[in-house]
Structure formats: structure tokens, C-alpha cells
């Protein structure tokens, strides 16, 4: 068996992105580098033979996905599962968590100006965010961060794929994070509790 064939069957059989190291587990002859090479070979092969699917890098791994231009054909079938789109508040909350993680509920609510508990729980249920830590402060509030599933949902390979703040049209360039602001306002006060 050729390495590219082994990588191909593993990708074909998977319904979620797989990391190169995960694919390499399929055979002793494989390691991460060989998997990467095989993926490049397969990509060339698919492009040359005009396959309707591609190997896409997302969610910290690789997955066989159809090319977007073929979506209209698949959308005619009710049986083709479509991931439910997120609501405005859910996207907004997710944006805050993605950029400011790890972040607590109170801070999210301060940024949004509205309550967020329900939205956060829904995002947790959909495995888009998770509790990543607890803050040191009073009551040790839960801190949230995004999951691999989040990257998958938006087609990002990693958090680096998120739109960069400096690329955004609106910007407060020297905006300090909230906690730093609080510190700079009362520099001599030491939180004792």
C-alpha cells in the first residue's frame, strides 16, 4: 500500500477532521511528515483529476469536504445534513469568547451590554465553547474558551485564522484589556482578598 492510499482511506472514513498525528496511527510506516507529504500528493491528484471534493485543513486537522461550488446540488436534498447556523447573540458571544479567551461571564456581559448566561450554556451544549479555567478572584468564576468544534464550525484551521483585529475597519488600537485598565487606574492598590 502506498502511504497516500492509507491516508486517503482514513480521511475517507472519517466524519470529522483528523490531525496528521492521528492519521499516522493507521500504519507503522507513517509519521506526521509522511502524512503531510501524502496529503500534498492527494491534493495534487484530486486537483488534476477534477475531483468534486478536497482535503481541507480545519479544526486543527484534515477532512475530506466537497468543494463549495457544488453546494447548490447538494442543497436540493433534504437528507443531506446541514449544520444549523448560529443566532446573532450566539455569534456575538462566540466572537467575544474567541478573542478574549479565557474570559468569564461577567466580562462577556459587560462587553455585550446584555446577559449572556443562556447563550453561553447553549454554546456549551453545542460544544463550541468550554470551561477552560477558573479565575483567581472572588468566587473563582468560570472562564470560557473555544473548542476544536468551534474551529470546525467556521472552517478555521486554528485560532490564527480568525480575522485579525488590525485588519478590522473599526479599531481602538491602544485599547487595553479591562483588567489592565483597572490596574492602571488604581496602581497603588493591591487586591488583598
Amino acid at each position: 500500500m502506498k502511504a497516500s492510499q492509507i491516508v486517503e482511506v482514513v480521511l475517507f472514513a472519517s466524519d470529522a477532521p483528523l490531525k496528521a498525528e492521528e492519521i499516522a496511527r493507521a500504519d507503522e510506516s507513517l509519521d506526521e511528515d509522511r502524512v503531510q507529504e501524502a496529503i500534498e500528493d492527494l491534493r495534487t491528484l484530486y486537483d488534476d483529476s477534477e475531483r468534486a471534493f478536497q482535503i481541507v485543513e480545519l479544526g486543527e486537522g484534515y477532512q475530506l469536504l466537497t468543494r463549495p461550488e457544488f453546494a447548490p446540488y447538494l442543497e436540493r436534498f433534504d437528507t443531506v445534513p446541514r449544520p444549523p447556523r448560529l443566532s446573532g447573540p450566539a455569534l456575538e458571544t462566540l466572537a467575544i469568547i474567541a478573542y478574549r479567551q479565557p474570559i468569564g461571564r461577567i466580562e462577556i456581559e459587560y462587553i455585550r451590554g446584555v446577559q449572556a448566561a443562556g447563550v453561553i450554556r447553549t454554546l456549551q451544549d453545542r460544544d463550541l465553547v468550554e470551561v477552560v479555567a477558573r479565575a483567581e478572584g472572588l468566587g473563582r468564576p468560570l472562564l470560557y474558551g473555544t473548542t476544536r468544534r468551534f474551529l470546525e464550525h467556521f472552517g478555521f484551521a486554528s485560532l490564527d485564522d480568525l480575522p485579525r483585529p488590525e485588519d478590522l475597519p473599526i479599531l481602538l488600537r491602544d485599547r487595553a484589556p479591562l483588567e489592565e485598565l483597572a490596574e492602571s487606574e488604581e496602581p497603588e492598590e493591591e487586591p488583598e482578598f
Partner: protein
Amino acid sequence: MNLVPRHGPIPKGDFLIVELDPFQGPLDLLLHLIRQQDIDVFDIPISTITDQFLAAVQEIGVEELDSAGEFLEMAATLIRIKAQMLLPRPGDDGEEDPRAELVRRLLEYEQIREITTRLSRSEAERARRFGKGHVEPRPQRYVEDTPLETTWEEVMEAAMHVELPHPLTRALRITTGLVAMEEKIQLIMGRLKDVARVEFKDLVAPWKEKMHGVMTLLAGLELSRQRAVTLRQSRLFSELWILRGDPQGWTGALADAENQETEPEEEV
């Protein structure tokens, strides 16, 4: 289950939290007022904006706003800033403009809104690629998240139309005759003379009254106890079959059925 609306800049999705508000929150409304009038965020005419904000909240109607408290809180903040602006401020002692924190919040919120739009675009783009039969995990529904789509008027209306069971109809439903189990035993055995098995449903089909069903079931249980028949059901709530009980008529399958202890979930 695809309720994604095809219109509007922000897809509301088929999601659990439904915000009925025209604005997603007080910051959204404030930002809308500022951007609509091309106001310089760094020099907000706080008095004008406060009045406009309060007017807008009043116009929309507090009861329309899902999160009225948050809008009122913002109104209070605006009024506080307005008051602070009126107080004479000593010159260059490094004290912050009372509006500074609000400006920070607004800009941050606007940035988040921009990111949200971009995320939404990425999401739409990603949705155009399909994996191999990949099914998204279904969201777990919480009872309290289910949006109330009815108004109190509708609830009242519905309540007024509820028909109470008429006492007379109830009186008329007194059973006219008793159904004897003996009768049902004969029915079952008679039916099983011709066929090896009979469906419970068919036995009770000719009668409407529940009592016939109850007595047929009791008859079946009694016969089963006497080992004259075997009752079988492949799983919970599926059809109930009554099988002829004598082992000669049933070879392998019956031996299996008789071995009641080994397949407890299939026994009635």
C-alpha cells in the same frame, strides 16, 4: 429542521435563544444612534444622545424589550455621565473624561459586531462544504430556553374555549354489560385453533370499550399462566402476539419462547 431565515444582515438561526428586540442590547441601540447621525464617537454630545436614547427606549416600549433592565441601566449610566459633564472639572489633573469608559465600551462593541459579521460569513462559507454524512450533534433543549411565542391574550382566549367534560355525557357512559373473562378465553382459544398465533390488536378490534381490551389481556395472562398460550412482544409498546402454547405445534421458535428466564425483556 432548518429555520435559518434568508433575509436580514444577521442570521437569527434556528437557535434556542430568540431575541425579539429590534436591538440586541443597549450598546447596539446607542451605537445605532451614534452611527446614524455620524457623530464622532470620541466627542459624543452626551446630553443629546441621552435624550435620544430615552426616547427610543420609550418608543420601542419597555415591554417589547426583552432585556428592559439592561436598557434602563444604560440610561442611568448616560444620565450619570451627563451629570458628571455638567460638574466643573479641574483642569489638567489627569482626570479622565466621564465619557471615556463608555467610548471604550462602544468601540469594543462595534469591533465585536464587525467580527460577528465576519464570523457569520465564515460560517456561511463553511456550510457550503459537506463532509461525508456528517451530522451535527443536536443541541440539548432546556425547558426554560423554549421561547414563549404566545401572548397572554391568546392564553386567555384558549382558556375561555376549554370545554369542560359535560357531566351528562359521563353519566351516559356507564357500562351496559359486563365483559366476562371466560368469554375472552374462549375467543382466544377458538382463534388459536385455526392459526398458530394471533395479534392482540385483532382480538380487541371489534369492540370500542376499554373493558374488552382489559378482559382480553387478563384472559391472555390467565392462559399464559396455565401455559396454554405464550405471550410475546419484541420490545416495549410493540404489537403483542398470543402464540399457541402447545410445544408440538412450535418447534424451535417455541422452545425459545418457553425458555422464559433467558429472555426476560421479551416476555410480558
